């Protein structure tokens, strides 16, 4: 018993506590657990199938998106290349690189 507790009340609680040896309760609890587990397993399977179906449905759009992105990147790289190969473009690139390095050299060199 905890020292701060009333001993009479403590005894009354101890006296009124029932000793349950109820197999029906144990079975019901386990059945409830099994029901929940099987529901979760079904939900997981449904989610998995739904995920697969979702990927199958959107895959044409994913392919279209990937080729659109690839075309866009090709265009961007070739435009940048063209600009960099001009004298003005080269000077601009060098100035930009030096400026960036000047402002960030500490971050680059010092750990």
């Amino acid at each position, binding site marked *: 018993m905890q020292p701060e507790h009333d001993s009479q009340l403590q005894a009354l609680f101890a006296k009124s506590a*029932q000793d349950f040896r109820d197999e029906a309760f144990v079975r019901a609890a386990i059945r409830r657990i099994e029901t929940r587990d099987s529901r979760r397993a079904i939900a997981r399977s449904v989610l998995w199938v739904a995920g697969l179906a979702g990927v199958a449905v959107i895959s044409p759009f994913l392919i279209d998106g990937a080729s659109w992105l690839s075309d866009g990147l090709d265009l961007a790289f070739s435009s940048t290349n063209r600009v960099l190969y001009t004298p003005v473009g080269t000077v601009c690139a060098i100035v930009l690189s030096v400026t960036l390095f000047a402002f960030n050299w500490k971050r680059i060199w010092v750990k």
Partner: protein
Amino acid sequence: MSRVASAAEHGNAAEATLITLAATGDKRAFEEIVRRRQSQVRNFMYYLCGHATERDDLAQQVFLTLWRSIGSLRSVDAFDGWLKRIMVTTWQQSGRRKRMTLADESELPELGTSAESPSQRLDLNAALALIPPPVRLCVVLAYAGGMTHEEIAAATEVPLGTVKSHILRGSARLRELLADYRHE
């Protein structure tokens, strides 16, 4: 054959072994834990709710939560405190569904204003039913759970001062309500 042997082995096993097995997903070991701990959980819930059907429903909910999370138990020694914590949380969640909060500082009902008069014989459960739920929870944790004020504060997330006050007021109210019953 092996199933019977396994059940018998589980029946004789130490609780620490059962907890370790249940944490790895052994349902038969968990069944044995339910068998051994049902008195503790069902008595606790009965003191709090006072209805046999609700008691068993809440007790089963406790074991369901226990099964779901037993894999994350770090130490077998922590099992008892952890079970009590689940019992408290389950009760609080059921209370929240009934619009009841632990922070509720409602006044204790006055003697004579409720349906029961002091002269009526009251058993412990009837007396507990007359105490507000937050106070009842602290009293039950103290007397049925054998927990210290500090442990109750930690389990219920109620300030220590409030826990002490709840237990003091709740115990006084219980003594008052049970006075006639004790003398008879």
